[in-house]
């Protein structure tokens, strides 16, 4: 029994779906952001798996950038949460409801 890349992809898919479900289901904005991180992680797993299988380092470079961008995104997202919190202490992601069109 050898660990083929399919295993990694399956794992990645499972984690991504879990993250997606959480993203659509939870109301607390912080939890929602955490789910986004989960999804990004899942993608990272598959990138690195491919890099290993194809013997190409581009996959790892991609993960590097994903990491950086995830960090930046967390910063901005959390500042949004802080702003939200200033309105009321019971924060729900449904408070961001003016996006339309």
């Amino acid at each position, binding site marked *: 029994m050898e660990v083929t890349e399919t295993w990694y992809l399956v794992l990645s898919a499972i984690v991504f779906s879990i993250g*997606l479900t959480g*993203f*659509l289901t939870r109301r607390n904005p912080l939890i929602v952001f955490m789910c986004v991180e989960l999804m990004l992680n899942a993608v990272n797993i598959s990138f690195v798996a491919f890099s290993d299988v194809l013997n190409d380092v581009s996959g790892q470079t991609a993960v590097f950038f994903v990491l950086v961008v995830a960090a930046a995104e967390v910063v901005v997202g959390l500042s949004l949460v802080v702003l939200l919190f200033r309105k009321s202490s019971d924060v729900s*992601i*449904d408070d*961001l*409801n*003016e*996006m*339309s*069109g």
Partner: protein
Amino acid sequence: MLELAWLIPGLPLLGFLILVVFGRRIGEPFAGWLATAASFSSFIATVLVFFALKGLPVEERFHIQKIFDWISAGSFDVDAALLIDPLSITMCLFITGVGSLIHLYSIGYMHGDKNFSKFFVYLNLFITSMLLLVLADNLLLTFLGWEGVGACSYLLISFWFEDESNASAGKKAFVTNRIGDFGFMIAMFLVFGAIGSINYDDIAANAGSISGTTTTAIVLLFLLAATGKSAQLPLFVWLPDAMAGPTPVSALIHAATMVTSGVFLLIRLNPLLAGADLWATGLISWVGAITALVAATAAVSQNDIKKVLAYSTVSQLGYLFMAVGVGAYVAAIFHMITHAFFKALLFLGSGSVIHGMGDEQDMRKMGGLKKLMPITSMTFIIGWLAIAGVPPFSGFWSKDEILLYLWGSEGIGGKYLWIIGLATALLTAFYMTRQVLMTFYGKQNFESEGPNAITPHESPRLMTIPLVVLACLAVVAGILNLPFGKDWHFLGHWLEPSLFGNEAHVDVSASTTFILALVAIGVGLTAIAAAGMIYYKKKYAKIEPQFFADAWRIDSTYASFFGGPGRMFFKGLAWFDNNVVDGFVKATAATTLSLGQGLKFMQSGLVRNHALGIVLGTLAVSGWFIWRLFT
């Protein structure tokens, strides 16, 4: 010279446009002179084109002048083009000629009217539409002119619309015409469906290829159209009421031109008539026959000077229909021309009488006007002799021609038609004599002194000159188509190219013709004598049953039908329109609305819903790709 043909409808159109914009400013009487000039110059153009056409050899006398491409939609191709052939030029000649005379007359008649220039705007527009109608080379352009004359007749009949009854008369004319228009349109669609084109030359070429049933249907529908426009049974009810309009209008529209357009249409479509079943063309004749008789009986009992002439017009149009139905196209055109002359003359004369009598129209209040209005009465008498069929005036020759063809026709009871025609001739002579006697002879039944004094006077020259011209024409027009052998048939030979050999041939010996003519003359003279006995010598009592006066109560039957059960039917239709037809529209709107309500959730603004949408979309797309892998 032939290329000038576009001027024929173009010049009155120009007159119309100028008057529409500047008419009020030009004012009386220059607006009238301008309109008359437009109409008269169109007449000159017609004459020039006529001579040009005459100069061509006979085979080429079918000229199409294209003005512009009008409609080009797939296989449906219609040009705005004029068909210049003997038939259309003949019509144009008397339309513009009589029209110009009536324009001249109107300058005098409408003197002092506050809407003077508006009248001439409508008159010019009418002439334009009528010319377009006869000159068109396809059914659609004819229909344009057809509708145009209908609209103008509405405008002109209800010219003095402040009076409610005048406005209603205009409406009645328009609505009744509309029924005919419906027939026209359906027939036009059928023609297009059958041969793929609505040009007259294509119809003439392909008429034989249309199936008999279709041709019959087309002919019947066109008969419906003609019945509406030419005021035959059962759609004649608008014409007597249309006398509410000014007298020049009655002369132009309801004697000389518009009402002849129905007959013209049928003659123009003679290839189709040749291909239709015999009973259909027979129906044309019988409709004309019954109309002629009924209208003549009605005219006998009328007291309004114009109503007599109105019913007389309906009756004479019946003659035209009788002729068309048996294929006597030349005779029909001949009688149309002579009728235009003498009926316009009679109408204008009656207008002169009304004008002189201070707007009095009841003949019982007239009498003894011969000495007071010499020119009017002289010309009116000439018109009377023409219509009564007294030789050598024109009416005799044309009416006799029709009677001859009726006698010689086969298959549809031609002899009976001849009897009806003869009876109508008798009644025509009778009521016209009655009219002349009541108006111009006998005791003066009006007050010539006192506070309500009426002083009848002769009309101004502007009005009498047209009367004189028309009277001369009514005298000599018979020369167009005398029956004394082939060489005298000028009109017959001239019109041949337009008739494609569909003209009926009568196999009657010369002696029979002579005898028939004598019978007709005898009948006419008897009627005149009888009328003289009743109304002049007062030897016998008057026979003026009210039943006849009400035109056999046809009109009132319509009124009660449409007012009573008809009204419920219309209410039902209105309900249907509101609930079912509009219901569809409203349902569409309601569906859209509810769809929108349902989709509102997509724009809730909530982040989660948007994310859900994205995910669902992604799922759909990827799912489709996976599906493709499966299959």
